């Protein structure tokens, strides 16, 4: 079933290729619906969240021990759900793509396969293959369907990620050399039992750093974040949604699934350094967001700021902090997808994104304003919506950590700045007097049904995750608990 889920998009891709181009978008949406249904069925078929289930294991390249090894546990499932859901909304948002739709939707589906694969691969090599598979369609989607500076942005995205990938791969190979297996669960078990998973003489601390940078580029953590604003600004709206909603989460997932459990001591040893760059990301990201005049760039920097909480939670290492970090991944996934859609909606009408040139849209497009302010307040952490749970839990958890409490204090400035940049943008874009041009319904219609179909489901999930966090948190709580005890033991080990 899991394999079917992953490869269903490939089937869709082939259909896109075989059938007339005008059907491509429908095939994309239908495939995404089917994938979401399959993921829900995977969920339904799971017995508890703790163990790896739906395991599929077969030799792939036996000569070097590489296996087709995929499975899900609660952690993977939560991200599969996020991926399938955000991808579906992005597919709907892609309906209006006119330039070479066949190619676009084929690449979109290939991207989906890559993303799903990353979250279920339990073989390191397989993980890396999916990780790379996903890069190519992303590169083309930005580079061919993007804005005026798409080439610069796509190349930059590409080289950045490539550099990260090389570091990651170097780390993975060293682990393979030491542990003599590609199997993630086996390596985790070895690390837990104290066995070395590296060749003799290799410093685990450095390997951890290499892997951390590899993943941090994706998160993106300061100072590896500068590809993100460019990529976002140039990417077409649905691709921005995927980029922020799913792609960034692969970095956090990699840290949680691989880097941290493989090297808990090194992770604990580097925790202060990680906390420092996280706090910089949170506060500095918020300040830079405040200074933006491009709506989309503002949202992009808000992503940098919010994703800082993910690495901060990991650095703090308490149960609450890690749970909050993971919750931030899910919450940010849906909220940022909404935010990018909101930028896309107005860009489609105004053909520019300059915050200072808008104003008064609230009264011209009331439904759009409602959903936009919903997303803004969700992102700035309004209770009742998912962002609040994520931020509060991470903050409280970080505060609880004796060694990283300072980081909680330092991140406070980000909370105020976040409110500032969102409310200033809200005011500049939506409030104030409505110029006559926006009253022209033919150029500035309120949300279309299709746009609403993208935004409303995302809003409902955001609301549900804010009201009843247990639904999502219970999926992965066991994993974060284990990770916490692992890190705690490692910290104790460091001290002695």
């Amino acid at each position: 079933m899991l394999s079917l889920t992953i490869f269903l998009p490939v089937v869709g891709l082939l259909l896109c290729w075989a059938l007339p181009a005008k059907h491509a978008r429908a095939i994309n949406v239908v495939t995404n619906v089917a994938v979401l249904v399959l993921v829900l069925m995977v969920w339904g078929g799971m017995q508890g969240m703790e163990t790896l289930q739906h395991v599929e294991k077969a030799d792939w390249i036996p000569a070097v021990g590489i296996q087709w090894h995929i499975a899900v546990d609660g952690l993977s499932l939560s991200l599969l759900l996020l991926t399938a859901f955000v991808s579906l909304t992005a597919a709907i948002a892609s309906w209006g793509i006119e330039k070479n739709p066949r190619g676009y939707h084929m690449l979109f589906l290939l991207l989906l396969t890559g993303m799903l694969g990353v979250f279920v691969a339990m073989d390191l090599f397989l993980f890396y293959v999916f990780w790379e598979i996903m890069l190519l369609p992303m590169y083309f989607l930005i580079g061919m369907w993007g804005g005026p500076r798409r080439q610069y942005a796509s190349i930059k995205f590409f080289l950045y990620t490539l550099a990260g990938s090389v570091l990651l791969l170097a780390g993975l190979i060293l682990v393979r050399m030491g542990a003599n297996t590609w199997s993630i669960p086996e390596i985790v078990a070895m690390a837990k039992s104290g066995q070395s998973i590296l060749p003799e003489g290799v410093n685990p601390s450095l390997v951890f750093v290499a892997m951390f940078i590899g993943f941090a580029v994706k998160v993106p953590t300061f100072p590896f974040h500068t590809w993100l604003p460019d990529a976002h600004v140039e990417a077409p709206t649905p691709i921005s949604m995927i980029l922020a909603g799913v792609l960034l989460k692969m970095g956090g997932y990699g840290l949680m699934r691989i880097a941290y459990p493989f090297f808990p001591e090194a992770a604990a040893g580097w925790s202060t350094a990680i906390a420092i760059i996280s706090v910089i990301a949170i506060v500095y990201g918020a300040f830079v967001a405040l200074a933006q005049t491009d709506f989309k760039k503002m949202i992009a920097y808000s992503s940098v700021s919010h994703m800082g909480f993910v690495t901060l939670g990991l650095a703090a290492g308490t149960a609450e902090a890690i749970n909050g970090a993971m919750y931030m991944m899910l919450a940010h996934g849906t909220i940022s997808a909404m935010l990018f859609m909101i930028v896309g909606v107005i860009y489609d009408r105004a053909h520019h994104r300059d915050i200072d040139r808008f104003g008064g849209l609230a009264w011209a497009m009331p439904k759009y304003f409602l959903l936009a302010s919903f997303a803004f307040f969700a992102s700035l952490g309004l209770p009742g919506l998912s962002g609040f749970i994520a931020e509060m839990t991470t903050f409280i958890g970080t505060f609880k950590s004796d060694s990283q409490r300072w980081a909680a204090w330092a991140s406070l400035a980000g909370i105020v700045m976040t409110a500032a940049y969102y409310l200033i943008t809200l005011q500049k874009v939506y409030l104030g007097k409505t110029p006559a041009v926006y009253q022209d319904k033919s150029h500035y219609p309120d949300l279309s049904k299709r746009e609403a179909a993208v935004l409303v489901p995302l809003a409902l999930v955001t609301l549900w995750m804010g009201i009843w966090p247990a639904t999502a948190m219970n999926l992965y709580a066991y994993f974060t608990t284990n990770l916490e005890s692992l890190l705690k033991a490692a910290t104790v080990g460091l001290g002695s």
Partner: protein
Amino acid sequence: MLGLALTILGAPLVGFVIQFFLGRRLPGQGAWLTVATIFASFVSAVVIMASQLGGADPFHISWAWFDPSGGGGTPWTVGIHIDGLTAVMLVVVTLVAFLVHLFSTSYMKGDPKYYLFFAWLQMFSVSMLVLVLADNLLHLFMGWELVGLCSYKLIGFWSEKPAPGNAARKAFITTRIGDLGMVVAIAAIYMTAGSFEFSKIFEAARSGALADPWITIAGFGLFFAAMGKSAQAPLHVWLPDAMEGPTPVSALIHAATMVAAGVYLIGRFMPILTPDVLTVVATVGAVTAVMAGFIALAQDDIKKVLAYSTVSQLGYMFLGLGVGAWHAGLFHLTTHAFFKALMFLGSGSVIHACHHEQDMRKMGGLLKKMPITGWTFLAGVLAIAGLPFITAGFFSKDAILAGAWHRLPFLYWMALFGAVLTAFYMMRLFAMTFLGKPRDQHVHDHAHESPASMTIPLLILGALAICAGWGAWHGILLNPEIVADAMGVTATGFKTVGDLEFEHSGLVAAMAITAGVLGLLGGLYVFRFMGGAALDRLKRPFAGLEKVFHRKFGFDELYREIAMRPAYGLAKGFRVVDEKGVDGAVNVIGRFARDTLAALSGRTDRRVVDGAVHLVGWVPRVLGAGMNALQSGRVRFYLSVSAGVLALALVLGRIL
């Protein structure tokens, strides 16, 4: 009890949802629905109040919400806690909210977003009730933040104009700065007490688990949050601007929701406030009370005067709490809620009658034209001035002064001076608006008494402004058991004010009475009977001071210089750093890596170099048809690197 509590929350919540999504299509745009739902809440609150007065035990229930503690702690909960304090707050909030709803049905008539106004009024009430009913700090914080959202929406209700939009944003951001204190307090309390629940927090304080320094930090954090929400200096700057909202909103913000939240928070958390914290609470309160009184003296906008009087009165409440006169501070909260709601709605009635004229210099002589508004307003003025024995304000203010007298005499004298000021500037307001000769005939000609839906709330509140000091509220807040419960565990040695039996000592009461009467008579004389020329002569020596007061001590200008400008400057600076510094470094590294790589592999592919040219930020050429070729070139490069690395991996894997 649970049913009642859920009715209190549920009725207006349902009202909000219906009104928000369907309100536009309801007959009469649904205002009646929201009046009915909030009335249902009020009735339930009265029933709860009655049972608390009848000696019912406090009620507590909580539900597991989610558990991020990894099994190492208890799940986070939401819940409901009802005791005497809750009951008082519930009645005050629902009653004032109900009257404001009723008043608004006429006041907002004709507004294009009429239905939406009532939706947000409902949500404002719900948020405040969530806050009041919460059994734990995190849950309370959610109500607290939702109150912030609703105030943002309502202050900025007319944000097609720039001023309300600015005011709304200022309110949200200023209170959010205060909220940082709350966030820290929540974290510090959770870390030490392991729970957010009030009873467990107090238990932890008693057992010593919640001890210094965290108990002090938590206390300061909570007070910092209260300073934001309850507009205490120096975080008071948002409240006067919030006057940009429709007047009923001002009434609600100033009386029952929002600003009351901070006072309630400190009242609720008395048991963990250390003497240091309490001294700061009292001092900030007293300073704010006097400072805002001065500012109110020099304002000409009727709502601005009321706004600063609120800031000042809130200062009294904190003074009361800070000197340990727990009941007095909260008692003043309730009486103030009534007389301030009264005066705001009264000013709304005046503004409504004068076609949205708010400048008192254009009013005068309105008492005859608007007798109900005028006389009820007078009740409010007398109450806030603390006219002895008959007004509610006297009892509560006297109790605060008595507390200060016992504990911090210096603050007592400040507060006493503030009381003179209060009476003086309120009488100024009354005289300028309602007495004397009309100063603007045009405005005067327009003026007329407001319809019943507006005067009935005024009459009810007028009655309460007079009588609320006599009745049940006083009783429940002075209930020794409740006070003992709250005070019993107050950190060391701070049960000073007797056994909290405030003897209304003759001397203190006499001075308070004198202060109030002096201020009222002085105000009446100066602003009613003294001529314009004499008044000008009187004011001349104080011209400099008046300017300072009129400019509100320059807080707004100060913040613009020391906070907003630097923040923007920093933001712009960081942006440059990000684009030129961080990204620049990346580009340099990228170029270096590309050169090295190219040299190593001996590749001379111009296309790669081309790509790198883009990398350093040259505007890329539009390559049209050539693009595909170009990209395939880059992909070849990518694939070759990737394949190389993979091959290396395989080889290495093989070897091992």
